């Protein structure tokens, strides 16, 4: 019981907790991206660390957040079209936290996070709805048949895994031919009725994301909102180890959720994602 009381004490201050988790994910992400644009990052890291260790008690500016924002901005400027989508989201969250250090209004910070999260999830829904390849199930069908979805569960179905490998090899062989000849291949289904499964899975994805976006907009702190949101995050992680993006969504969950048990679930997701990121099992 004593442990739960201690845990509850830690979970109660969500802004401080989410800030610490964000720093953790930021550090991992920035470290993994450190070899890009090194010429610009070296002075930022050097000056940032020096200021942090020597001046952090004298300066009222949040040096560590400014440094991280500087590093993210360098990549944004030089690699705009190559960056992962969560790089953009990370920048917006860091910017919100940075500005929070000046206005000190938790309601404004939480509103920033809420609206940002709604925009991200809602845009994802719109992008899917406007993609005929996605809505017909063709995209998921291709991913399933290459063994790119539910990779960790595929090991329990060795026959399906073999079919996926054979499909990937056929595609590589096709790529080696002159496309002007008009040659094509027929993918073998890794599971029976895969066409229907892919179609249904596509619609389930859209419906869940839409429900999450609407509930986050209308009831950002509601219990059901966060139950559905955590289910969505865990569901995506089961599908693929998109740990970088999911860690960010879970951090947003820590900011917004009022229920301590669900907040603990979010913390577990972030720490789990961080572990998978730094061990390179998950994507950063």
């Amino acid at each position, binding site marked *: 019981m004593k442990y739960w009381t201690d845990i509850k004490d830690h979970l109660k201050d969500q802004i401080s907790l989410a800030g610490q988790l964000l720093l953790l994910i930021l550090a991992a992400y920035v470290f993994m991206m450190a070899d890009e644009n090194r010429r610009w990052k070296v002075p930022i890291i050097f000056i940032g660390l020096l200021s942090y260790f020597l001046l952090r008690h004298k300066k009222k500016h949040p040096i560590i957040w400014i440094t991280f924002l500087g590093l993210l901005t360098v990549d944004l400027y030089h690699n705009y079209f190559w960056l992962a989508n969560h790089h953009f989201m990370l920048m917006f969250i860091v910017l919100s936290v940075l500005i929070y250090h000046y206005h000190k209004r938790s309601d*404004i910070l939480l509103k920033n996070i809420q609206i940002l999260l709604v925009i991200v999830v809602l845009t994802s829904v719109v992008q899917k709805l406007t993609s005929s390849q996605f809505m017909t199930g063709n995209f998921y069908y291709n991913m399933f048949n290459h063994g790119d979805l539910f990779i960790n569960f595929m090991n329990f179905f060795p026959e399906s895994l073999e079919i996926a490998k054979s499909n990937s090899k056929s595609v590589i062989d096709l790529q080696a031919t002159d496309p002007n000849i008009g040659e094509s291949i027929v993918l073998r289904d890794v599971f029976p009725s895969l066409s229907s499964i892919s179609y249904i899975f596509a619609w389930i994805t859209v419906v869940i994301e839409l429900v999450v976006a609407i509930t986050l907009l209308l009831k950002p702190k509601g219990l059901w909102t966060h139950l559905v949101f955590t289910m969505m995050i865990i569901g995506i992680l089961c599908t693929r180890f998109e740990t970088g993006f999911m860690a960010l969504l879970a951090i947003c969950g820590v900011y917004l959720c009022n229920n301590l048990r669900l907040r603990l679930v979010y913390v577990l997701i972030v720490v789990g994602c961080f572990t998978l990121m730094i061990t390179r099992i998950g994507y950063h």
Partner: protein
Amino acid sequence: MANTARELILKYGIPSLAVVIIAIQLFYVNTKNLSKWKGGGYGMYTEIHYFSNQIYIPGMSLDSLLKDNSEMKSTLGYLMLMPNKDNLNKAGELILKTTQKDSIHIQIWKPIVNSKDGFYSRVLIDEVHLKATEL
């Protein structure tokens, strides 16, 4: 009044920035053929990844072009990511300059899949014919 405006900016300024980035991404997707996966528009997992696009140059190996040539990697990378006429021309010009050839025919293809019959094939996105004398 000033406080209300300040509060509105603080609350919705950053989310508005996100909307601007999304609008830019949609513009590039619809006018420059940028892959939905990139550009901060949260369109990942909505179409086959641009890695599956195929650059085809008759009579030329792509591997030999890319070997130890970072400019070529970057230019052809952009062509895969944003397969449009501008990027085809840029790639063609660079290849002509690098290989000292008189002319080049360069194509960019993308895969299509039909879940109803499992049919996997390729369709031509765009192509250019360039002559060294025209550069």
